[in-house]
């Protein structure tokens, strides 16, 4: 009798079970992101620039301001990977320092602006009423003022350094984020889960930060990716017109300005820094688009 039945082998036991392995939101977003080739390429280029910015100067025997006028405008060689500039300074090292400044300003500004924007936008959306009206009027006024002008003025008051550029970029920079978050929160706070949290006795702080802002994280990240290139744009622009990062420190914008005078004789001097600026902004734009699509699959 006992041989009439035999136990099912282990692997057959679950063979009818067809549930997909469950994935978190971020895992799914990552899967979608990986399918976007341009975005992945952008990410790789940015990683390379970041590595060069951090470690590049350590691997080069030259300093950004080490002059060697007997060796000005040297061609590409083993000693000077990307040649030298008008004072015989190593272009590769200077580009690495330029990357440091650009990325520092880009990501620094994006972080500060996102933080300010999320807090102010979140509070305005959640509290509403008079507070919201007053803050939004102030926002309108800051937004209507041409930001490039007071960035320039702040640079002139505080001196040409990374800190002044960051201050200048961050005064108007949070407004887009604040408006975006405010809109999201106004929509989200009417939804059932917010009411449920309220009924369960959650504090305002908890509802705003743990429920509402977390649910708006997709648009927040997308907005954040837009902030990075605009800050890098501003730095390059300021350094190009001569009030950004001051000499002898290297910035891509100021290197392009230096190269302008020798554009006919040494076009390569201009090619390298401008290529770095464009590649970085390109990568950031593609990366931003990829992240936006990955986080928001319904959009298309």
């Amino acid at each position, binding site marked *: 009798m006992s041989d009439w039945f035999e136990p099912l082998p282990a692997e057959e036991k679950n063979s009818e079970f067809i549930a997909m392995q469950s994935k978190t939101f971020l895992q799914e977003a990552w899967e979608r992101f990986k399918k976007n080739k341009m975005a992945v390429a952008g990410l790789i280029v940015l990683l390379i620039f970041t590595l060069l910015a951090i470690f590049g100067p350590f691997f080069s025997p030259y300093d950004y301001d080490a002059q060697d006028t007997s060796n000005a405008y040297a061609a590409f060689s083993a000693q000077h990977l990307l040649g030298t500039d008008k004072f015989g300074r190593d272009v590769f090292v200077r580009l690495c320092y330029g990357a440091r400044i650009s990325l520092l300003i880009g990501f620094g500004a994006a972080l500060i602006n996102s933080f300010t924007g999320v807090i102010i936008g979140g509070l305005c959306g959640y509290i509403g009423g008079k507070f919201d009206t007053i803050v939004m009027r102030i926002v309108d*006024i800051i937004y209507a003022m041409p930001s490039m002008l007071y960035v320039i*003025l*702040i640079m002139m008051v505080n001196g040409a350094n990374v800190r002044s550029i960051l201050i200048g970029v961050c005064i108007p920079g949070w407004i887009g984020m604040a408006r975006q978050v405010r809109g999201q929160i106004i929509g989200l706070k009417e939804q059932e889960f917010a009411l449920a949290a309220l009924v369960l006795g959650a504090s305002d702080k908890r509802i705003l930060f743990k429920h509402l802002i977390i649910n708006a994280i997709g648009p927040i990240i997308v907005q954040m990716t837009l902030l990075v290139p605009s800050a890098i744009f501003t730095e390059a622009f300021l350094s190009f017109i001569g009030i950004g990062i001051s000499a002898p420190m290297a910035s891509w914008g100021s290197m392009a300005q230096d190269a302008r005078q020798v*554009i*006919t004789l040494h076009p390569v001097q201009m090619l390298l820094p401008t290529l770095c600026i464009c590649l970085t902004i390109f990568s950031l734009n593609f990366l931003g688009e990829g992240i936006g699509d990955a986080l928001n699959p319904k959009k298309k």
Partner: protein
Amino acid sequence: MLRYIIKRLLVGIVTLWALITLTFILVHRMPGSPFEAENLSGSAIEQLEKAYGLNEPEWKQYLIYMENLLHGELGISYKKNISVNTLIARGAPYTIKVGLLAFALSAVIGITIGIWMSVTKSQIVKNILLAYATLGVSVPAFVIGLYLMLVFGVWLNAVPVVGLSTPLHYVLPVAAQAFGPIATIARLTKSTYTEATQMDYVIMAKAKGLSTFQIMFRHVLKNALIPVVTYFGPAIAFTITGSFVIEQIFSIPGIGREFTNAITNRDYTVVLGFSVFIGALIIVANLVVDILCSLIDPRIKLTD
């Protein structure tokens, strides 16, 4: 409708006042006396400061400045002993000519490319236009200016690159100024146009048997172009800040170059005067565009 316009005007006026005050405060915080660089003795500097009213308390200087502004006086350059009004009057024609040309060019070409991107069936054309639209928003104006100068001015030697003496001189600066806005307007038009063609009222218009021409102009374009017109405000600001670099690259004696020169020379009153002037220009332009939009499209005031 009137309420909306009045509200926008009020915000505009407060913004202008805030801009002037902020600029004034910042300029007066700038390190050093404006006469320091000229190798003058201490007493000579004091005398000059007295002559220009710089020894007065700051609030009094502010009041005097505001009063002068209301009379249309933007101040006097300490370095060149020339009024800021004269400097602006001298530079404005060049900046306006290049700016307006670039602006018109970017509106016409941008909208055309945008619609083309939306209607074309050819994948190749679509990709080329998309590549341009991406390139245009990723490359700063000064980089475009430098490359246009290098390729067309130096290597091909096809067009002159210094000054604005003949119509041919306008080609490169205008192209450099318009390159970015064309791409932005094209992207914007593409998305609004695609959206507008899918609207129910367009299907309705087709079902009624309206001609393609009527559908295009009365129903699709009218709705598609409103967001594009809204962008014209920021585009004017972009064109003006763009002139700072473009005029430097192509040696055009316009407002942008005067402003950057004043910055490098630390000519504070000129920086102050130009900031106020340029800022006011941008604020007024934005205001006009906003009010125009609300007149074209009555729906706008409802969302605000």
